[in-house]
């Protein structure tokens, strides 16, 4: 009797563990669109997502750095990802958002064309970045495969790194 009980308990434990394992294996991402491509970043790197508002231009910076804006008393740089990815700049629309990303102490706002959704991906479904862009310099963390499309996952620390 007690053996049986043990076995049941053991099984339950196993089940729970595998559940936990599965949770560990899932990456939560937020997807967004820039130009024609869909990208994603880990949800935990996002401080907040806000509607666009006015910013102040800063001189002597590359064109993709739009300037700085006031986020509840903090002065935060604003980076246009379209320009950073070499796309034509586009007028902001109703769907334009600022994603405020944080990595350690570094914070910056990024202008994106459109949000898509929160995505849960199994780690197994994430492939490495294409060989051509491999290396430490790439801002691509990996490629997430979904049923009908692939999503480029970006490295937040690279996005927040000053490269000028």
């Amino acid at each position: 009797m007690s053996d049986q009980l043990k076995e049941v308990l053991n099984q339950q434990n196993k089940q729970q563990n595998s559940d936990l394992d599965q949770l560990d294996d899932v990456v939560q991402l937020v997807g967004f669109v820039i130009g024609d491509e869909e990208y994603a970043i880990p949800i935990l790197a996002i401080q907040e997502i806000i509607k666009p508002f006015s910013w102040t231009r800063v001189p002597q910076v590359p064109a993709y750095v739009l300037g700085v804006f006031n986020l509840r008393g903090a002065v935060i740089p604003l980076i246009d990802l379209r320009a950073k990815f070499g796309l034509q700049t586009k007028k902001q629309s109703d769907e334009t958002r600022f994603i405020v990303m944080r990595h350690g102490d570094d914070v910056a706002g990024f202008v994106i064309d459109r949000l898509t959704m929160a995505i849960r991906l199994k780690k197994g479904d994430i492939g490495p970045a294409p060989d051509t862009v491999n290396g430490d310099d790439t801002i691509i963390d990996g490629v997430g495969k979904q049923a009908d499309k692939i999503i480029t996952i970006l490295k937040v620390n690279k996005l927040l790194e000053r490269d000028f």
Partner: protein
Amino acid sequence: MDEFQEILQDFLIESFELVEKLDEDLVELENTPEDLELLNGIFRVAHTVKGASSFLNFDVLTHLTHHMEDVLNKARHGDLIITPDIMDVVLESIDLMKALLETIRDTSADAGIDVAACVARLDKISGGDGEVDTPAVVEVAEVTPEPIVEEAAASAADDDVDYDNMTPDDLEAEIEKLLQERQDEDKAKRQAKIEAGEEVLAAPPEPIEDEPAATPTPEPTPAPVPVAPTPQVAATKEEPKAAAPAKRAPAAVEQTIRVDVKRLDHLMNLIGELVLAKNRLIKINDDVEERYEGEEFLEELNQVVSIVSLVTTDLQIAVMKTRMLPIGKVFNKFPRMIRDLSRELNKKIDLQLDGEDTELDKSIVEEIGDPLVHIIRNSCDHGIEIPEIRLAQGKNEMGTIGLKAYNEGNQIVIQIDDDGKGLDAQMLKDKSVEKGLITEKEADSMSDKEAFTLIFKPGFSTAAAVTSVSGRGVGMDVVKTNIEKLNGMIDIDSEIGVGTSMKLKIPLTLAIIQALLVGVQEEYYAIPLASVLETVRISKEEIYTVEGRSVMRLREEVLSLVHIGDIFEVERILDANEHAYVVVLGLGTSKIGLIVDTLVGQEEIVIKSLGDYLKGIEGVAGATIRGDGGVTLIVDVVALMSMARDVKSTALTDSSDSLESHEKTKASDYTIMIVDDSKTDRTIMRKALEPLGVTLVEASDGQEALNILKSGDHNFDGMLVDIEMPRMDGYTLATEIKKYNKYKNLPLIAVTSRTGKSDRMRGVESGMVEYITKPYSADYLSSVVQRNVNFKSEFL
């Protein structure tokens, strides 16, 4: 281990504080070798450091302080008189002690510094009578009034004396002696009071330390000559002692706590946020006032807003004050420095300190030390002449350097005066030309005052020979850099043969500052008010170009100009006005005029950093958040001045390279905007123009039209504008549009039912090219539009 670290920290903090005070005391002691109060104090420091360091096993430090203690103990008991030579050794040992303490702070161990030589010298003084003047000391010690007073004073500090080392008999004798002395002392005091009479009472109530320093001692230092002590000497010595207890008393009552600077910084940040919120609240209050004029709740709101702003300001001042330190902390090290320098240079120099209580922000106090050291060294080395020359010129043999600090508005002024030989403008110019720092032409056009500032040029030194003190031509350059870093200014005045006076003007605090807000095109910038000397309004004709640079005449001076737009790469969208404002910036010793479009006003701003991502942008010191929630960049005046040198003169010249006119290949390349508040009217116009095949964009009022225009989505070839519209009427719209360079040639056609002549006149004034009165025929409208946009007939 942690506990040890904690003790070590306390030990270091305490020791450094003690040592700092020590320097000042020692120099004073040299002037008044008989001052036992001082001697005791110094002895106590050595003793305390020795005790603590032996407890913490710092053997080298203990060894050194032990021998210092020996010497000081002798002096204290009158067995030794402190001569300048002995003082040199004592000071050297204190330097060693400082070095040891610093080593301990950095490495937690006191190894690596050799104290043997110094200890040997200390031993020689304390033990061997090997030094000069010892016989005289014995003589002094035997004179009756002297020991009484000395011992009496010593008794005050006798708690610190090592009684453990005494035999019981000695102890007994000591107690006996002390009792006797106490009685004698009382007697002597009473005697002295009678003798000194009113003088004691009349003595100023300031701390006693100031007195010897403030009263110049013209007679040579008394130490080497054994002065036979007379009753009068005893009486005068009585005076400081009588005052001493009164001075000590408040120190004991004073209640302080040590606070981590980080906490204060945090508090300061919070206050900063509060100031921003306050600014915002005031702005909102103004808006509300405008909108709900006469409402009852307004008054209540007003009251709350003013209380909040009042309290915020007070709070800000209060927190700022907690960060304030008296500048005396910096001044303290100078008496010692002057003493060393005057001995080294064989000059006689007296330092007069004033305003040591003047308070400055901690961060500034930390920065101001180095520049002052350089300036004072410079004054000693180049300013004050050697005694023979001074006497020959009929000056007092003793040179004087005055160092004083005082408040002036929102600034602290530190003034350094010397009565030395002064600066020779001509000599400075010649030297600079010789060294290739300036051209001869520049030298000729320089005023004396400008010539004085040459001493701040890197690589400049007026001393004929390089001494160990100065002359390498780096020091004054450092002064300028450091003062500029603090947003300060330097002002020099000098007269040959009379002396030099240098004023350093430094803002009180760094975190929250007063700023002048200026506008250029559609952007705003904040300039620290401390750097703004004045603002002037000029017309374009007043700007001249000299060697490719813009300059203007400001009273007697020629001021070089730079346009803020050139510094910050501002796009010239708006048409420049006939007039411009020049903000005259002064920093250190240089001046420059910054051309701006508008002056917005003065505002209290909180400096915020741009963060790691954007740090190091030249010309931008940081950012601040304005009352409306927008971010405004703060101008870094130091950087701006150096940037201005590289900027070519484009000031106020119109960048009239108009937009490349796109070649029209089809009718729909033409874009016309229709501005009318009536939907019907818009439709009528649309119907009239649609046959042409041009692209039409509609706006329902002036404001909307302006926004569409600004957004740059379309390149308009013409606009049809109604005059009477809500929000913004046609005239205003036209005026606004014509402000932009880009739209100077954009044809605006008024379409209106107003037919009066004055209406037409107003239309022309505001920049309209045609005036169509309603009703009109479709063909007529179409033809007017075609004519004005140069519509190519082949598209018809």
